[in-house]
């Protein structure tokens, strides 16, 4: 759990922030590096367990084949949906230029 050989570099922090669409200023980046480093250090103890051949649990309940039938149901009123939109144009949502 030593922070000296941190598990996450400033480059990693920048890469992950980019993936997550978050902007961090320099102070936030430093803080993130330190804190994530110590959390990841703590998580290293997971590597101590031998999990060879152990199945991964993705769903804790043994459910399978939960379906709905192909029958048209109620839709949401366009006005009700667009009432939540930060910006709209007629029946559309509106976003600033993409490129």
């Amino acid at each position, binding site marked *: 759990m030593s922070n000296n050989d941190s598990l996450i570099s400033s480059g990693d922090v920048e890469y992950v922030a980019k*993936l997550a669409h978050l902007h961090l200023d320099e102070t936030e980046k430093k803080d993130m590096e330190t804190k994530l480093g110590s959390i990841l250090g703590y998580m290293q103890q997971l590597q101590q367990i031998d999990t060879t051949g152990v199945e991964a649990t993705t769903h804790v309940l043994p459910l399978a084949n939960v379906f709905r039938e192909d029958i048209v149901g*109620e*839709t949401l009123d366009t006005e009700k*949906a667009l009432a939540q939109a930060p910006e709209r*144009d007629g029946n559309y949502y509106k976003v*600033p*230029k*993409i*490129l």
Partner: protein
Amino acid sequence: MSQYLTTIGLEFHAELKTKTKIFCSCPTDFAGDANTHICPVCLGLPGVLPVLNRHAVELAAKAGMALNCEVSKFSKFDRKNYFYPDLPKGYQVTQYPLPICRNGWLMVKDEDGNDKKIRINRIHMEEDAGKLVHSGSNISDSSYSLPDYNRAAVPLIEIVTEPDMSSAEEAKNFGETLRLMLAYADISDVKMEQGSLRCDVNISIRPQGQDELGVKVEIKNLNSFRAVYRAIVYEEMRQKSLIDNGIPIVQETRLWDDAAGETRPMRSKEDAHDYRYFPEPDLPPIIIDDQWMAEIAASMPEMPDAKRKRLTEELGLSDYDAGQLIANPPLAHFFDALYAEYPEAKIAANWILGDIAKLMNSTEKEYNVVPLSASELAFLLKEIKKGSINNNSAKTVLEEMFDSDKKAADIIAEHGFSQISDTSVLDSAVAKIIEANPKPVADYKAGKQAAIGFLVGQVMKETKGQANPGMVKELLEKALN
């Protein structure tokens, strides 16, 4: 391209023919205004959860069967994470390590007309994204864009081939064969212009004798298999000229510009492509047991190869006619329906491949089915056979039946197309014409056989074209001999 080898793999996205979206009960049809086929689930509002459409699973499994795949007994969904305004949840629900189908193949003709087996790596289910309407003519010159989520979460299958194709011709043939299979199995509308079938090309070239594959370029925005063909030919030339000039090929995505006949690099914000796939916790896995698998298999309609065999071997159609019918699924389906009520294969095929095909091609409209009732057409063909309507009138009736729900009998009656075969009616008309035309009568009696044609025409005129011409000729001959 003699000194270079081309390697092509294709990726298809086909919209499944369900009534509702993959994870919610919104309708999938595109009629109607923007953002009207939406609900909290497909809008990705906070707190919503997906519930899988059973029919989508069945269609995806059916696609696997149509394309000779192994259908998985166990498959599951994953999340593919990336940001884009047409993606309501910030992730796409798709299948990553355990797709519903694997290891398929299709036999297609290569450039020399020989059969070649093209392998299919996988088929997986996923949700479609919404649509962006751009303020300008395209994304690059737009000052804003307008998301419409009607298409968001429409069920798709993605079909990925192995890089087994080596020419534009093969790729086009593969695409057309695949489209036909999906149409026959009734899995998708497969309309490339409307986007219900989409095809992306992965292409690389390398010098003869080099084992290692060249740099891969992806081509998107291909709206027809003709475009697929042209784009590949263009790309082969472009890459060859780069190599010849010692310029390295860049691994990139390029867009096909059909009007300009060229590919161009796609502009995009450079986001890292790290999709962070992980198992979708909101959806339990899919298990297809033997019984369900058998039910899905039983729902498979007759596929093209079996149909060809039946049409030629059992019904005696020519290879050419059978091929024409099979290449056009609506016509082929209609043929079966018509044959069931009018079991004369050759006549049925002639009408379908002649007049009906012509009618269907004469409008801009695209048909999923022949807009005619097979029983009504069968009625009309039986009337011709009985001699109660002539061929020309029948064609007029057919035209009116096309795209209207009028019954054949009503159209015949409206136009008075019924042929007169009642001898008592015809006898008096024949007598009247003989009396009114002494000169042709004399000519005929003098041995001028051709004069009978004139007299038949006069009787037809007298009966407003409704007389059965064969009978008129017979009656005239009888009266004059």
